[in-house]
C-alpha cells in the first residue's frame, strides 16, 4: 500500500495495461476474419452487410463490435467524392465567354474558377520556365500562333546556363559570402555538365512560382490571425491537421479539382506550404516586444504603419525562417508532385525508380539534394543576414553585385554566341547541355548496384528474411490481433492519465474516426510500421545524440549533418534503400528509420544543450562523475525536449511509411497511391490522408500534453 501511495501514476498505468491485455485475450479472433477487408465497398459478396446513409450504400464484412467496429463513416469518402463531382460539374451553371470559339458557353461556376486559376498558374510557370529555358508559349499567350509563325524571332531564347550559374553564385555571395558562392557555382555547374539542366530548371521554375505565392498567402493569413483571435481559432485545427497530413495525400483531391500537371501541383503545393508560413509569421509577430509596439503607437502609427513599419520588420528573422520553410516544402512537393504529372527532377526520379534504374535515380536524386541544400542555405543566410547601411557608399559600391551580374550576362551571351560557332551542327554546350547528353555516371552506379547484389546477395537476403519472418511478421500479427475495443481503451486511458478528461475525449474522437472508417486494419499496419521505425530511430537517435553531445565539435558536426539530411525531400531516401534491399518492406522500414532518426538525434542534442550551464557547474562542484551528471541531471531536464523530438520522429516516420507505398506496402499509403489513379479517388485519398494525420495527432496530443505538464513541473520555459 505504501508503494501504491508513493507511485500512484505507475499503478494507474499498470492497471490500464492489465485491462488492455485482458481485453485482448478475452476477445477471440472471429473465424471469418481476414486481413484484406478494405475493398469491401467495391466487391459484391453475399456475406457482406450493408447500410445506406445519405443515399450512399456502404458494404462491409460485419464482425462482433468488440473485435472491429462497423465502418459507420464508410459513406464519407463516397460522399466527399460525389459532392466534389457535383460542385465541379453541376453546381451553379453560368454563361461564360469563350475566347477560342467566340461564343458564350455554359459552365459550372467552380469548374470555371478552377480552370481560370489553372490557366493563370500555367501562365506563370511557363513564363519563368521560358526565361530560364526559352520557348514561345508566353509570347503566344499575348499574341497568337499565327503571329509567332510570322515573327519567329520573338521566341524567348532562354538564359544560357553559364549566366544562371554565375547569377546564383553572385546571389549566394551577397547573401552568405564566399563559401556559399563557391558551393552555388559548383553545384550549378555539376547540374549542367551532367545533363540535368532542363529538369532542374523546370523544378526551379515551379518553386519560383509556388514559393512567392505561398509566402504572400502565408504572411497575409498570419497577420490576420495575429490581429484577430477568431481567425486564429478558425485556422488552428487546419494548421494542426496539415502539419501531420502526409503531403502525398493532398495530391489526390488536387487531381480532381485542377487536373494533371504543373499548375495543379503549384496550387496543391501552396496548400501544403502556407501553414508553416502562417505559424512562423504568427510566432514572429508574437515575439515582438510589447514595448516596441507601444513605441510605434506612441510615434503615432496607424494600424497599417504599425504592421508594415514596426511589426513585420522587427519580426523579419522569423518571417524569413518561414520563407526558408516555404521553399523547402515547395521543393519536396515539387518532387512528390511528379505523381500528378509535374515536370522536372521529381518526374525523372520517379521514372528512373519505376524502371529500377538506380543509377539514373541516383543522379536525379543528387541534383535534387544539391539544389535543396543550396536553396536551404541561401534562404537561411538571408534570414540571418543583418541589414546593411548604405549611406556612406557611392553608387558603384552600392550596386556592385548588380553591376557584376550585368557583366556576367554579357559574357554569358558572348560565350553562348561563340559556342554556337564552335559547336556547329551539334549541341551548343555553352548554351545548354541537353538532357541526358551530359556526362552520365548512371552506368557506373548500376554496375555498382549489380556488384553489391552479386557479392552480398546471400547476406542481404538472409538479413531480409530474418527481419521479415522473425520480427516484422510477428509484430504485424500482434497489431492486427488487437480488438478494436482494446485499442480504444488503451488510447483513451493513456489520454486520461496524461491529460485528464479533455485529452481523453480528443484522442477518443480521433481514434473513433479511424476505427469507423473502412480502413482500420490498414491503419493498424501503418501504425505498426511507424512504431517499428520510431523505436529503432529513437534508440539510434538518442544514443548518437548523447554520444555526440560529449564533445563540442561532434555536437556541431552532428547538427550540421541533421540540417543537411533534413533538406532532402523524403522521396530521395528511397533511392539508396531500393539499391540495397530491392522492393521489400525492409527497404521502406530502413528509409523510415534513416529519415526519422534525424529529428530524434537533433532534439536529443538540443535538449541536452538546453540544460542551463549554471546547473552543469553546480553539478560538477557537487562532485558528480560524467555518468551521474548525464543520468541525474542532464537526462531528466532534457527529457521533455527529447519527447518533442519523439513527436517529430513519429510524424517523419508516418510520412515515410506513406511514401513507402511507392515501393509496395499494405497500409494506408498504398490506398492513397491507388486513389491517385482512381477516377473516384478524391474522397478516398482525402479521408485516408485525414486518417494518417489523425494517427499523428493522437500521439501529438498525448506527447505535447505530457511535455507541457512536465515542463511546468520542472519550471522550464
Amino acid at each position, binding site marked *: 500500500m505504501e508503494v501504491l501511495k508513493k507511485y500512484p501514476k505507475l499503478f494507474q498505468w499498470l492497471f490500464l495495461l492489465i485491462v488492455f491485455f485482458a481485453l485482448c485475450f478475452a476477445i477471440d479472433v472471429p473465424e471469418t476474419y481476414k486481413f484484406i477487408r478494405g475493398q469491401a465497398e467495391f466487391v459484391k459478396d453475399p456475406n457482406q452487410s450493408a447500410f445506406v446513409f445519405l443515399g450512399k450504400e456502404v458494404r462491409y464484412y460485419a464482425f462482433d463490435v468488440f473485435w472491429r467496429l462497423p465502418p459507420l463513416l464508410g459513406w464519407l469518402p463516397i460522399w466527399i467524392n460525389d459532392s466534389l463531382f457535383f460542385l465541379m460539374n453541376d453546381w451553379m451553371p453560368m454563361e461564360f465567354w469563350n475566347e477560342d470559339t467566340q461564343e458564350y458557353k455554359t459552365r459550372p461556376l467552380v469548374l470555371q474558377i478552377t480552370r481560370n486559376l489553372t490557366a493563370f498558374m500555367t501562365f506563370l510557370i511557363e513564363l519563368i520556365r521560358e526565361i530560364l529555358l526559352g520557348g514561345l508559349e508566353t509570347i503566344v499567350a499575348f499574341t497568337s500562333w499565327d503571329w509567332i509563325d510570322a515573327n519567329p524571332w520573338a521566341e524567348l531564347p532562354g538564359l544560357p546556363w553559364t549566366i544562371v550559374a554565375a547569377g546564383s553564385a553572385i546571389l549566394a555571395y551577397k547573401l552568405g559570402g564566399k563559401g556559399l558562392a563557391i558551393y552555388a557555382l559548383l553545384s550549378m555547374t555539376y547540374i549542367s555538365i551532367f545533363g540535368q539542366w532542363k529538369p532542374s530548371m523546370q523544378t526551379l521554375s515551379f518553386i519560383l512560382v509556388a514559393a512567392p505565392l505561398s509566402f504572400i498567402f502565408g504572411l497575409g493569413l498570419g497577420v490576420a490571425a495575429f490581429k484577430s483571435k477568431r481567425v486564429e481559432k478558425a485556422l488552428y485545427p487546419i494548421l494542426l491537421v496539415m502539419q501531420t497530413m502526409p503531403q502525398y495525400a493532398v495530391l489526390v483531391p488536387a487531381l480532381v479539382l485542377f487536373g494533371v500537371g504543373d499548375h495543379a501541383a503549384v496550387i496543391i503545393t501552396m496548400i501544403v506550404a502556407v501553414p508553416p508560413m502562417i505559424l512562423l509569421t504568427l510566432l514572429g509577430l508574437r515575439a515582438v516586444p510589447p514595448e516596441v509596439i507601444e513605441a510605434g503607437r*506612441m*510615434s*503615432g502609427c496607424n494600424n497599417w504603419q504599425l504592421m508594415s513599419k514596426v511589426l513585420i*520588420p522587427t519580426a*523579419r528573422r522569423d518571417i524569413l525562417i518561414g520563407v526558408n520553410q516555404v521553399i523547402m516544402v515547395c521543393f519536396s512537393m515539387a518532387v512528390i508532385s511528379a505523381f500528378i504529372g509535374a515536370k522536372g527532377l521529381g518526374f525523372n526520379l520517379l521514372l528512373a525508380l519505376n524502371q529500377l534504374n538506380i543509377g539514373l535515380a541516383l543522379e536525379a536524386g543528387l541534383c535534387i539534394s544539391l539544389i535543396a541544400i543550396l536553396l536551404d542555405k541561401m534562404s537561411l543566410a538571408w534570414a540571418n543576414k543583418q*541589414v546593411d*547601411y548604405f549611406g556612406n557608399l557611392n553608387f558603384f559600391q552600392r550596386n556592385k553585385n548588380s553591376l557584376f551580374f550585368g557583366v556576367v550576362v554579357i559574357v554569358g551571351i558572348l560565350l553562348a554566341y561563340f559556342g554556337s560557332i564552335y559547336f556547329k551542327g551539334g549541341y551548343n554546350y555553352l548554351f545548354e547541355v541537353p538532357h541526358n547528353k551530359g556526362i552520365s555516371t548512371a552506368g557506373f552506379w548500376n554496375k555498382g548496384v549489380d556488384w553489391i547484389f552479386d557479392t552480398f546477395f546471400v547476406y542481404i537476403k538472409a538479413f531480409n528474411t530474418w527481419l521479415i519472418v522473425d520480427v516484422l511478421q510477428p509484430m504485424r500479427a500482434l497489431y492486427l490481433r488487437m480488438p478494436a475495443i482494446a485499442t480504444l481503451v488503451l488510447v483513451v486511458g493513456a489520454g486520461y492519465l496524461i491529460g485528464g478528461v479533455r485529452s481523453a475525449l480528443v484522442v477518443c474522437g480521433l481514434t473513433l474516426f479511424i476505427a469507423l472508417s473502412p480502413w482500420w486494419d490498414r491503419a493498424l499496419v501503418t501504425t505498426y510500421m511507424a512504431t517499428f521505425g520510431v523505436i529503432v530511430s529513437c534508440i539510434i537517435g538518442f544514443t548518437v545524440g548523447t554520444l555526440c553531445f560529449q564533445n563540442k565539435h561532434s555536437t556541431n558536426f552532428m547538427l550540421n549533418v541533421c540540417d543537411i539530411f533534413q533538406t532532402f525531400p523524403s522521396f530521395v531516401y528511397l533511392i539508396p534503400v531500393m539499391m540495397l534491399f530491392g522492393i521489400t518492406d525492409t527497404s521502406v522500414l530502413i528509409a523510415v528509420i534513416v529519415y526519422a532518426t534525424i529529428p530524434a538525434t537533433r532534439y536529443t542534442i538540443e535538449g541536452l544543450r538546453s540544460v542551463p550551464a549554471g546547473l552543469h557547474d553546480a553539478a560538477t562542484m557537487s562532485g558528480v562523475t560524467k555518468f551521474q551528471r548525464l543520468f541525474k541531471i542532464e537526462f531528466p531536464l532534457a527529457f521533455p525536449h527529447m519527447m518533442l523530438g519523439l513527436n517529430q520522429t513519429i510524424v517523419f516516420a508516418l510520412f515515410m511509411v506513406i511514401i513507402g507505398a511507392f515501393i509496395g506496402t499494405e497500409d494506408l499509403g498504398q490506398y492513397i497511391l491507388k486513389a491517385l489513379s482512381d477516377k473516384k479517388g478524391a474522397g478516398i485519398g482525402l479521408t485516408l490522408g485525414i486518417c494518417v494525420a489523425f494517427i499523428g495527432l493522437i500521439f501529438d496530443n498525448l506527447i505535447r500534453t505530457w511535455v507541457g505538464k512536465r515542463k511546468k513541473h520542472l519550471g522550464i520555459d
Partner: protein
Amino acid sequence: MSEPVIKCQSVYKIFGANAERMLKEANGNVDAKTFQDNGCIVGVNNASFEVSKGEMLVVMGLSGSGKSTLLRCISRLTDATGGKIFIEGQDLLNLNNKELIDLRRNKMGMVFQSFALLPHKTVLENIAFPLQIKGIKTEDSINKAMDMVKLVGLDGRENYFPRELSGGQQQRVGIARSLAVEPDIWFLDEPFSALDPLIRKEMQDEFLRLQEKLQKTIMFITHDFDEALKLADRIAIMKDGIIEQLDTPANIVLNPATEYVRKFTEEVPREKVLLIKDVMDETTSSDIGDLKVSKDEIIENVAEKILTQEKTVAVIDGKNNVVGSINPAKIINTVFGGRKNNN
C-alpha cells in the same frame, strides 16, 4: 493658475472579463481582494491628480504597484476602465482613433525601459521615425533627427544600428526619438532602470540638464526612490494600484503619510535631500550671527558651516532678503533626530 496639462479624475484600470460591470457595481469603493476573487486584477485604483505645465511628476512604486499601468492609461496605450483623463483640457477617453493618433504625433513622447528601438533602422532612422510617420519630408526629418542626435550627444554614431550601441547609448536614442516631434508632454517609463549604476547616474544628470533646457511636462516612472528624490518636482508613491502619497520630495521625507511610505524614507540621507527652506524657521529671531545661507541650498552643502556657528544663522532668498533662520541644533535634529521613534 492655468489649466493643468494632465488631469486625472478617479482613474481605474481593472483587468479581467467583467471589469467594467464590476466597477460599476462597486460604486467607487474598489477592494482589490473582492475583485481578485472574481477573476479581476486591479491595476490602478482611484487615481486623481494634476500635472501642471513644466512640472515633473515622478511616479514611484515597486513592481506590480500599477505605476506603468497608470502611465499607459494616460498615454492611452490601454484604455482606462473608469474615470476621466484630460490632456490640456481634451477628454482623452473620448478621442476617436484619428484624434488620438494626432495627439500622439504632435503632443506626446515616450521613453521605454527596454529602449524599444526598431532593430532594422539606424540611429538616425530610429529618431526620424516618428517624423516620417507623421508624413514629414525625408530630408527635413533627417535634418531634425540630426539635431536630436547632437542634443543627446551621439554625433558620429548616427549610422550605427541599435545592436551596435551600449545600453546607455541606446537609451539616448530612445530619448532623442521621443523628443523628435517636440512634444509638450513627455512620458518616461523607467528609462534608466536597465542601465548600470554609474551610467544611470550620468544619464540622470544629463536628463536634468535637458529638462532645464526644454521645460517639458513630464511623467516619470521609476522603482528607485533615490532617483525619484533626485529628479522630481513632486512624487506620487503607489502601492497596489493606489496612490499612497503625492507630495514634494521634502514633504514626503519629513511627513510620510502612511507606514508604507515611511519605510522608504527611513534609509534616506535627509541632508542630501532636504533644502534649508524645508527645515528653517520662518520667524527671524533677534539673536542672529553674521553667516547667511541661501534657502535653496541642500543641507549637506552648508551643514558644516552652520554647525560651527554659535548663533542662529540667517536664511536669505535669491534677492538677499532674510526670510528665516536656522540654528545648529535644528540641523542636528534633522539629520540624526526624528528616527528613534521609528525604530
